[in-house]
């Protein structure tokens, strides 16, 4: 029996727990061979492969080979939300959906999974967790606490998102697009943006104060009292300048130049 002979079903097909665990574990390496030609494609095939072995005929059968070939073709998405596509594609392959339908689904999912993931994770959750860590740093938490707080918080969201993604994809199959319209996913980036702005206002002054070093760095208090307001003023002016400059003027390059000049002046004096 080939894949095209099998009729699509509404109930999810059977999938062993060992295959589910293998698919989930491999998702952490989905970008292992990321490249500019096929992007995430080979990674999708790599993640789906343990489940595809359960196709009729097993790993030597034509259904497995056809499905694996399809799943390794060009694909691009946010690496965490690629889990949604992996879950849906595995189900579609096991249900024996037509190849054309699966390929159209792959093409259609690239954009939404990329932009939603970028807004939710890279522009929302990651800066949020970074600022929580900087707040802990500014409040003089120990290095161990700062690192564990950051990694614990970030990865609670990270692993939960991957687990939600693969289970939602598996549950909904090729109709998974509707799940991406859930209020939490659509409004989540907005809520996170407000939290990030509040945390930035709170954490950055405390972080500046700690870097300048009122405690532990033996900086005299009269130096500190002058340095802190001047640093805050310099930071505000430079930030305003960076916001107004074109996006191609990157702040990290500006910081590199400022530091290089400072180091050269300090050595040459």
């Amino acid at each position, binding site marked *: 029996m080939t894949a095209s002979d099998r009729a699509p079903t509404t109930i999810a097909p059977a999938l062993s727990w060992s295959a589910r665990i293998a698919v989930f574990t491999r998702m952490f390496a989905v970008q292992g061979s990321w490249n500019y030609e096929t992007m995430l494609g080979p990674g999708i095939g790599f993640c789906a492969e343990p489940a595809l072995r359960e196709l009729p005929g097993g790993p030597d059968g034509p259904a497995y080979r056809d499905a694996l070939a399809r799943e390794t073709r060009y694909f691009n998405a946010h690496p965490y939300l690629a889990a949604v596509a992996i879950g849906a594609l595995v189900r579609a392959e096991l249900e024996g959906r037509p190849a054309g339908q699966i390929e159209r689904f792959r093409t259609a999912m690239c954009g939404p999974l990329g932009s939603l993931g970028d807004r939710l994770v890279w522009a929302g959750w990651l800066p949020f967790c970074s600022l929580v860590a900087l707040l802990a740093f500014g409040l003089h938490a120990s290095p161990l606490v700062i690192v564990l707080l950051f990694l614990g918080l970030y990865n609670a969201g990270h692993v939960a998102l991957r687990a939600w993604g693969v289970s939602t994809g598996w549950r909904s199959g090729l109709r998974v697009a509707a799940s991406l319209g859930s209020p939490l996913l659509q409004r989540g980036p907005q809520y996170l943006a407000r939290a990030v702005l509040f945390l930035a206002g709170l954490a950055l002054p405390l972080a500046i104060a700690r870097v300048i070093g009122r405690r532990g*760095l033996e900086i005299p208090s009269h130096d500190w009292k002058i340095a802190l307001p001047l640093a805050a003023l310099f930071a505000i002016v430079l930030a305003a300048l960076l916001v107004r400059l074109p996006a191609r003027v990157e702040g990290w390059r500006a910081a590199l130049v400022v530091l290089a000049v400072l180091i050269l002046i300090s050595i040459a004096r």
Partner: protein
Amino acid sequence: MIGAAQLLPFSLLGALVGADVVSFPQAMLSRPIVAATLGGALAGNVAAGVLTGAVLEMVAMETLPVGASRYPEWGSASLVGGAIAGWHPVMRPGAINHGVFVGIATAWAGGWSMYALRRLNGVWAERALPAMEAGSRRAVMSLQLRGLTADLFRAAIVTAIALLVWTPINDYALAHWTVGRAAAHSILAAAAAAVAGGAIWRQSHGAAGSKWYLLAGAVLGVVLVIVA
């Protein structure tokens, strides 16, 4: 001059945090606040590591690791920056400045090495294409494992080269450092906070009431700085 025995643990750790940026497991072990702290701890001065990590974290908030864009590789670079800052058990004036400078410069070079690896992965993927189109499990597995292994090697090499280059320069720079600690740290903190603040505003100012959330946080932050 750094010896091979000293270089090995840094390179191994650099490989792990460097691969974490993209390949595996993207658990943000590669973020400066983590990697620089680890670098400082391994060099013997965790306080210098976390200080460098916090400053680099502010700078790194600007660069989003969005798919096809080329961005600095903060993982192994932060480890090197933290290690350079913590190289001497007693934190010398200028040590954090130099650690942060090394971190950003190495991240820049690391970004290029990541770009080169992605091009190489493309060449390998193209070669494996006929086998993958035939549904070969072996082709898919070997492509993925080759990419992962190459990324580990890339990050280890970036770490080793950066430490070999920067440790003697660090010793020279710190021996001739003249700017006071308060001024040096003020410029450092202000530049990093400006990059972070500007980046956050660019990314998040579209949210309703954005300036009020920022202002409310800033008022509370300033009060805490004054009373703490």
